[in-house]
């Protein structure tokens, strides 16, 4: 990220991580163990910003911690586009076509997500459409030739925090059901910390000069599923879409 020191200070000062005294158990190679099956308990997938309830969509509070008003700092043109997206969301939401959700949306879908770790990778496997995120931990760089639905994630450890740099994002994904969006210039830095035994604090700072007037940050908690012998099942979205199309013929 290319933020000024002042902006970085704002993040650090404005977004204190909870329970800093907790020390997470380690994997065999000595890094914090983030493994398990996790899920948010919020409505970020409906709308990242403050929102009232609509049909089948619960109300919820903004997960945006910076800027302090909890709103995405869109340029005027982008704000207009978001309004259009919202109006057309039933048809236009890429998730309605069962497309790969992209980052950060895959992190707060209402589906369980399993994290596993090896020395070279952190793998995040979502139950939604068998979606897969591979975070390279080997110091390698983003490729310079292709964009991906799920972007390209390269991570490193900053103390006890997993820091993931996400680039190469296709412009076709949305952040939520409400049409909050980005362009191909999106760049994300995620900070993931196991702040309690069964809690991950998830923070993502997003910049996209084509769409936002300044970088902004969301923060939320992921809760560990503790049901015994829990496994990810399947939500094979495109299968159900086909079934629905057949039924409506």
């Amino acid at each position: 990220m290319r933020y000024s020191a002042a902006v970085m200070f704002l993040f650090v000062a404005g977004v204190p991580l909870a329970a800093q005294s907790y020390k997470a158990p380690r994997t065999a190679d000595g890094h914090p163990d983030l493994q398990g099956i996790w899920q948010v308990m919020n409505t970020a997938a409906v709308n990242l910003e403050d929102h009232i309830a609509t049909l089948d969509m619960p109300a919820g509070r903004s997960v945006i911690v910076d800027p302090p008003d909890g709103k995405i700092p869109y340029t005027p043109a982008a704000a207009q586009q978001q309004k259009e997206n919202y109006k057309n969301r039933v048809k236009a939401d890429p998730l309605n076509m069962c497309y790969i959700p992209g980052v950060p949306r895959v992190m707060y879908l209402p589906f369980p997500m399993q994290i596993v770790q090896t020395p070279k990778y952190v793998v995040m496997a979502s139950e939604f459409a068998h979606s897969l995120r591979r975070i390279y931990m080997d110091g390698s760089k983003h490729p310079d030739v292709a964009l991906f639905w799920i972007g390209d994630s390269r991570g490193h450890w900053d103390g006890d925090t997993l820091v993931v740099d996400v680039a190469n994002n296709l412009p076709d994904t949305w952040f939520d059901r409400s049409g909050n969006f980005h362009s191909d210039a999106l760049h994300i830095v995620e900070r993931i910390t196991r702040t309690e035994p069964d809690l991950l604090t998830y923070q993502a700072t997003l910049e996209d000069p084509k769409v936002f007037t300044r970088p902004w940050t969301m923060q939320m908690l992921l809760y560990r599923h503790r049901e015994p012998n829990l496994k990810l099942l399947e939500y094979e979205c495109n299968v159900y879409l086909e079934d629905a199309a057949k039924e409506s013929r």
Partner: protein
Amino acid sequence: MKKWNTLNLLVAAVTAAALMTFAPLPGVSQEKGGKGGKGKGGRGGDPYGPYYAAPVIKGEPVGRTPDGQPDMQGFWTPRFNQAIFEVQNHPTPQRGIGPGKGAIVDPADGLIPYKPEAAAKAKELMSKNIYLEPEAHCFVSGVPHAAYQQFGYQIVQPAGYVLFLTEYAHTYRAVPTDGRPHISPNVKLFRGDSVGKWEGGTLVIDTTNQNGKTWFDMAGNFTTPAIHVVERITPVDTNNIDYEAVVEDPAIYTRPWKIAGQLGRHPDKDMELMEFACVEGNQDLVHYTEGVGGTAKEVKK
């Protein structure tokens, strides 16, 4: 993959499904190559093509992961003859699938021991309803089909798990090795429910709970929800893994049958999987027109 070239980008973008279906067989010269016919795309000899099988090269002794599992981590290419097109021996070309060998080692004739009515159904699917091929619809493959997946796969072994990460449809198969039981038989899944255990140097995976909506191949060899698969995966050295799977399903087979093959480590040490975004750009169904035995009008869009 780090060796970026036009083919990779093509594959990563939208036409891979078409390429997958109509690219020529590995090592078989074929004019009707479809999208894969341009350049080296889709040929078995291209190390980044869908059907590449790494040559047999003797490796070092198998190492151990930090939690003591035999270490199979890395990128693997399946050597299962032409099972990806049809799992059983298929001496007669049909539907763009050339003559070739499958991967069945028992029975000795290399054919699926179907009951008569099931054999008729498989033939019917192949001859009249090939547009139903699940992977043409971007459905994830079942087990054992996932073991001889196009583009191969990456194995990662965090403590207590073996994960297979596939390029096709950008998906995963997670096999716990911590002794947990199968889920309830009431829950059926495309991938089924797999539980694994290490027996010495062999990973034994028991898979139940499949939903009967997957095929073994592109040739109508279907499954039912009664399918039970036991896979035995044995790393031989750092470059080679032996694979076998026993398939039973009393609903459609007269006896259990077995496939066998090998996995060869991909020679590219800097290999990275690409994103095969299947649903997002599926061009495959439109290729199943009357000309190749499909029913184009059944296909939306």
